């Protein structure tokens, strides 16, 4: 029996008749929390967020309360709030659901956060391809302004804050928070070096800036509603709240699901919630947190000790669906994107596909990433196009190892980790590819030909 979803953020989004307009939102209790918080002290809201333990839902899983604490409030410069709505980690499609179906929830979460940090201007940086999403948000902001929920003297208080929707233009690197800020300043989105450019100190226009993901900011509304302590009871210690998981690839029922953190395992998600693998095939591998996360093999055992001292011995199916589970298994939950691959998947082709992505998306600022990601793509493309060599597995690992840790931002790791894990865990397939091709086979992949661009 499948564990039931616990829908907090997505409570209404898919309800029949629920519409993205403000009237509908207010009928469902919308903006009451903003009203309540405007009567609170800003520092008390920050304290509730800290107590809640809510971790960032964008990829890094950094505690939001800590980010707020790091904000430089003594500089005298304006403080900005930026919502990272550049949802672009391959496999992720959760923020889209909120923005398209329940935009006011995001706006309310943002306004509460903005009040807590005394921001006078907030931005939503939405990915360029979501034209419709941008229109929905623009319209929602207009409605909220007319209703007095944002703009001048919000709900007749002394607090004023406006909100701007800003569209990206198709670049994955804009999901990296300092790249996003560069983009928002009208420049190429080359990520900034940290230190000194931590957004909390030197963010947008060199001012203190809080950058959080859509899902994270929506949580703020619910933290205020139930109180940080109550919120922290949802999920498990260090893994509080619910998370929206995006499941794609080879499952019978792909989709997005909101669960209490750790309420179920990856196995239950794949088999019970998503109906298992199609056509009676078997599970081969899972990428547990977006394409940057290290791949997990179906017959792999994960052993070790958790932080609380308990020993574990897991297969993929036993890994708890939360932040710390995949981390303990040597990977990460990232943006909550679970990509499932069945036993027909050619891992060299899957690798080639991922490498093409990172080669295309590297901003080009750091040489190891720009050149390395390109070479990773060139090698795997050659492999699937009939030119595989037995030594390619080692070559790929060598290139990836030379990227990791040598770049300004985490994109270098995002490009290296998939390669390191694919090659380590499926090395026999990489070698077999070369042998099969030497015998005249294996030259036409099931995903279709890969071309070098």
């Amino acid at each position, binding site marked *: 029996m499948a564990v039931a979803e616990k829908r907090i953020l997505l409570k209404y989004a898919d309800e029949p008749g629920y519409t993205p307009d403000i009237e509908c939102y207010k009928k469902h209790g919308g903006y009451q929390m903003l009203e309540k918080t405007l009567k609170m002290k800003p520092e008390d809201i920050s304290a509730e967020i800290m107590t809640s333990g809510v971790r960032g839902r964008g990829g890094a899983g950094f505690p939001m309360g800590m980010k707020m604490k790091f904000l430089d409030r003594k500089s005298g410069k*304006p403080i900005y709030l930026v919502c990272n709505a550049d*949802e*672009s*980690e*391959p*496999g*992720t*499609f959760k*923020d*889209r659901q909120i923005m398209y179906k329940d935009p006011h929830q995001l706006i309310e979460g943002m306004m509460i956060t903005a009040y807590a940090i005394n921001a006078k*201007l907030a931005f939503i940086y939405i*990915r*360029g*391809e*979501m*034209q*419709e999403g941008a229109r929905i948000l623009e319209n929602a902001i207009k409605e909220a302004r007319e209703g007095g929920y944002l703009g001048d003297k919000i709900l007749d208080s002394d607090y004023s804050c*406006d909100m*701007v929707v*800003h*569209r*990206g*233009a*198709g*670049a*994955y690197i804009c999901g990296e928070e300092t790249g996003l800020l560069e*983009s*928002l*300043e*009208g*420049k*190429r*989105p080359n990520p900034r070096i940290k230190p000194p450019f931590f957004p909390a100190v030197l963010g947008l*226009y060199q001012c203190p800036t809080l950058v959080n993901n859509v899902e994270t900011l929506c949580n703020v509304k619910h933290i205020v509603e139930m109180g940080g302590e109550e919120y922290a009871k949802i999920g498990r210690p260090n893994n509080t709240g619910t998370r929206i998981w*995006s*499941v*794609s*690839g*080879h499952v019978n029922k*792909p*989709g*997005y699901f909101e669960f209490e953190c750790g309420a179920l395992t990856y196995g239950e998600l794949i088999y019970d919630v998503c109906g298992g693998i199609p056509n009676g095939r078997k599970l081969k591998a899972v*990428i547990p947190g977006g*394409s940057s996360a290290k791949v997990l093999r179906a017959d792999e055992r994960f052993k070790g000790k958790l932080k609380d001292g308990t020993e574990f011995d897991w297969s993929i199916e036993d890994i708890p669906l939360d932040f710390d589970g995949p981390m303990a298994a040597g990977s990460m939950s990232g943006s909550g*994107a679970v*990509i499932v*691959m069945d036993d027909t*998947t050619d891992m060299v082709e*899957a690798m080639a*596909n*991922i490498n*093409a*992505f990172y080669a*295309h*998306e590297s*901003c080009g600022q750091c040489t190891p990433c720009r050149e390395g990601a390109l070479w990773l793509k060139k090698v795997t493309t050659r492999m699937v196009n009939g030119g595989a060599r037995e030594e390619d597995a080692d070559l790929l690992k060598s290139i990836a190892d030379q990227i990791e840790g040598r770049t300004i931002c985490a994109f270098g790791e995002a490009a290296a980790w998939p390669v390191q894990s694919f090659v380590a865990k499926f090395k026999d397939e990489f070698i077999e590819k070369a042998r099969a091709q030497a015998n005249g086979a294996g030259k036409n992949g099931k*995903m*279709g*030909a890969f071309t070098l661009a």
Partner: protein
Amino acid sequence: MELKTELVEEIDALIPKYPEKRSAVLMLLHKVQEDQGYISPEAVQWIAEKLELQPINVQELVTFYPMLRQEPIGKVHVKVCRTLPCALNGAYATCEKLQSELNCKLGGTSPDGNFTIEFVECIASCGTGPVVHVDETMHENIRPENATELADQLKAQVKSS
């Protein structure tokens, strides 16, 4: 370069939303491209003047961001997601089917000028892949088997426009 009055008004309303003018550049590029179909050298010049920037400050964005283009495209812009979750469900075969149905090469425009087909990277709808983004509309679950249906729909759309 002459832009429509309405467009200039929209642009003039957009700029003051930002604390610094330069921030508006990407939004201006979107506005101009949506109106003209692409970003011409004249458009780069116009936007640079409007925001008191050097043309290179605008041009370097046009060459960086995948959504911005320097050449006109067909009447209908077909973007097939090729990233892993879509590829696992047949996106490459879907793309081939669309190419033959619309008589259009990947990365090019059909001889009748009606269609441009491109591969794009993940567009955040992986649960309903393969996804095909046509102009501003997302088409979901476009497997090779039903790609012809979408192609017919697009051909009819061009005819009636």
